[in-house]
C-alpha cells in the first residue's frame, strides 16, 4: 500500500488538498490507520504550535524604548524648524513684501521711488479726499481712513495676521501628530 506523502498529510491538515486528489486521499485515509494517526498527530502538533504563548519582552523594555525615542521628540522643535524652513522663509518673504509695500508710502524717502502698491495707495488716498469734499461729515465715518493715517492699524493687522498664521501652524502640527498617534 502506498502511504500518503508528508506533503499530502500537511495538505489534509491545512484543508488545502486539491479537488482532483481529494477522493484518492480520503479513500486511503479511510482504509489506512497509520496515515490516519499521522494526520491526527500532525493536527495536534500544529494546534499546539498555534496556541503556544507569545514571548514577552522584559518589564524594563518599554521604558528603555521610550528612553531611546524621547531624545528624538526633544529635538522635534529644531527638526520641525528645519523641515518647515522653506515654508517659514516663504511666509517671512510675503510678510516683508507686504510690510515694505505699506511702509514705503508712509516713510517715502528720496531714495524710494513709487511702486505699484504705493501708486495704488496714493490713488485711493486721492479718491478719499475727493469723496470727503462731496459727502457730509457724518457719513464719512463709514469710509476708512487712507493708509497714511492708519499705519498703526496696519501694523496691528499685520501682527494679528502673523499671530494667526503661527497659531494655525501650531494647531496643524498638534492635530497632525495626534492623527498619526490615533491611526497607530
Amino acid at each position, binding site marked *: 500500500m502506498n502511504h500518503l506523502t508528508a*506533503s499530502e498529510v500537511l495538505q489534509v491538515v491545512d484543508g488545502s488538498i486539491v479537488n482532483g486528489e481529494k477522493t484518492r486521499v480520503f479513500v486511503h485515509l479511510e482504509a489506512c490507520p497509520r496515515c490516519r494517526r499521522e494526520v491526527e498527530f500532525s493536527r495536534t502538533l500544529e494546534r*499546539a504550535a498555534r496556541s503556544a504563548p507569545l514571548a514577552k519582552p522584559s518589564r524594563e523594555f518599554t521604558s528603555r524604548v521610550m528612553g531611546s525615542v524621547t531624545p528624538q521628540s526633544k529635538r522635534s522643535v529644531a527638526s520641525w524648524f528645519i523641515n518647515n524652513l522653506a515654508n517659514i522663509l516663504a511666509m517671512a518673504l510675503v510678510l516683508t513684501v507686504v510690510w515694505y509695500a505699506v511702509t514705503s508710502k508712509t516713510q517715502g524717502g528720496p531714495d524710494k521711488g513709487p511702486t505699484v502698491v504705493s501708486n495704488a495707495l496714493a490713488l485711493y488716498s486721492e479718491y478719499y479726499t475727493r469723496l470727503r469734499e462731496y459727502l457730509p461729515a457724518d457719513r464719512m465715518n463709514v469710509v476708512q481712513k487712507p493708509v497714511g493715517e492708519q499705519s498703526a492699524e496696519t501694523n496691528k493687522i499685520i501682527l494679528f495676521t502673523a499671530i494667526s498664521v503661527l497659531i494655525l501652524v501650531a494647531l496643524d502640527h498638534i492635530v497632525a501628530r495626534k492623527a498619526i498617534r490615533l491611526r497607530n
Partner: protein
Amino acid sequence: MTLSLRMLKNREEAEEALQDAFIRAFNALPRFEWKSSFSTWFYRIVYNVCVTQLSKRGEDIHVTLDGEEGEGGFEVAEEGLAPDEKYESDEFESLVVREIERLPALYGSICTLFFMQDMSYDQIVEITGLPLGTVKVRLFRGRMLLRQAVGRHIGADKQTAA
C-alpha cells in the same frame, strides 16, 4: 518579540533587535504610506533587523538552499511514526514550543509567522521579501523538522518509560 526570539535564539539580542526595530519604525513613521497593514510593515522591520543581526554573525538566511524548488514527495519515515496514545496537552505544548525554538532561523522565522502570528503566505512573502515558492518550501521543511523532532522526543520518552 516572538519572531526576533525565534530568529536570534537569544533573549537579550532579541530585545535589542526589537528595540532597534521600534526606533526605526518610529523614525520611518512619517514615510509609512498605509498601503499595507501596519503590523505587516512593522514585522518586516523586525525581520530585517534580525536578518542584519544574523548576517553579522555570518548566518545568511536569504541564501537559497539546494532543492528549494520543490517540496518533495517523501513518505513519513517508519521510525518517526505518529504515536498511538494521547499526550498531556500542557506537556505536549511546551515540548512543541521548545522544538520550535530549536528550529534554524531559516525555518523558525517562517513557522513563527505562520503558526503564532497566523499569517497568510502573501503576508509572509511581504514581510520576508522571499519568493512565494521559497516561503512554501521553507514552511514545509520547518513543519517536517518540527514533526520529526517532536516525534523523536516522544519515541525516546516511550523507550525510557519501557
